[in-house]
């Protein structure tokens, strides 16, 4: 498959994931499972942009690792703060 074809499919995948991900917003009863799903969709979309738009697989190791750390860190933090929000509130009580 050509690089341009992959890029076009990446865009199509991103559009579908965005519309599908938005549909999760209609659920008022979101538990940890839905939060994890939202985080997963976020992680997949960001990875697609990194790989096909930014072309990170061809970038130097330092750039690639730093960007992936940020991109994977966010969905993980979403899940962790949802699961351990009370602990975070206790630890940061002095800031508020």
């Amino acid at each position, binding site marked *: 498959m*050509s*690089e*341009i074809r992959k*890029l*076009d499919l*990446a*865009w199509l995948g*991103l*559009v579908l994931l*965005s*519309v599908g*991900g*938005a549909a*999760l*917003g*209609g*659920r*008022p*009863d*979101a538990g940890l499972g*839905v*939060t994890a799903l*939202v*985080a997963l*969709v*976020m992680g997949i*979309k*960001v990875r697609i*942009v*990194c790989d*096909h*738009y*930014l*072309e*990170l*697989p*061809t*970038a*130097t*190791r330092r*750039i690639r690792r*730093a*960007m992936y750390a*940020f*991109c994977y860190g*966010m969905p993980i*933090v*979403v899940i962790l*703060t949802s699961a351990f*929000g*009370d602990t*975070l*509130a206790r630890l*940061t009580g002095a*800031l*508020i």
Partner: protein
Amino acid sequence: MSYAITVPDSPPAAGRIPGSKAMWVGIFCEVTEFALMFAVYFIARAHHPEIFRAGPERLSLLAGTGYTLMLLTSGWCVARAVHAMRASRQSACLRWLIGAFVFGLGYPVIKLFEIRWNLAHGLDGDAGVFIVTYYYLSFNHLIHVFWGLLGMIWVMLRTATGSYSAEEYAGLESFAVYWHTTDIIWLMIFPLFYVLR
């Protein structure tokens, strides 16, 4: 007389710096800035979980999805422009950049309508911690989109005047890298404020 140059559609060589080193310094500054703002979001959310759980239903999901589609499509056009330049197709590159600009402009246009909608629904700076955090992050992102649109005008002018070639297009690619990073930041903001309950 015109010459058709055929360049294999293959990925660039591995181990390179896409765009320029200076742009990546700027990008890591941008990423650090947003990481700190996301930290503010998570701390505020941890302290006010009920307010943040109810927050997304106060915002327009249609506007949020609209921003996402505009930015993703604009980013796709920019990526296609870079591919066109690599294949020495300057005029195609310019057309893709014009497309990217039109879709990129969709972002501030939707923002205009959303702000009017928000204010009509009482969502101003006194509307609580969720809305204040939302304005704080989304306006910062809007500023980055504005920088990107200005940069896009610059690379369009440079492309139109033949300043880039298949051998030398680091300026175009540097802009592309910035624009895609702005995309990535939005892909994180969108679920935090419009989707996550």
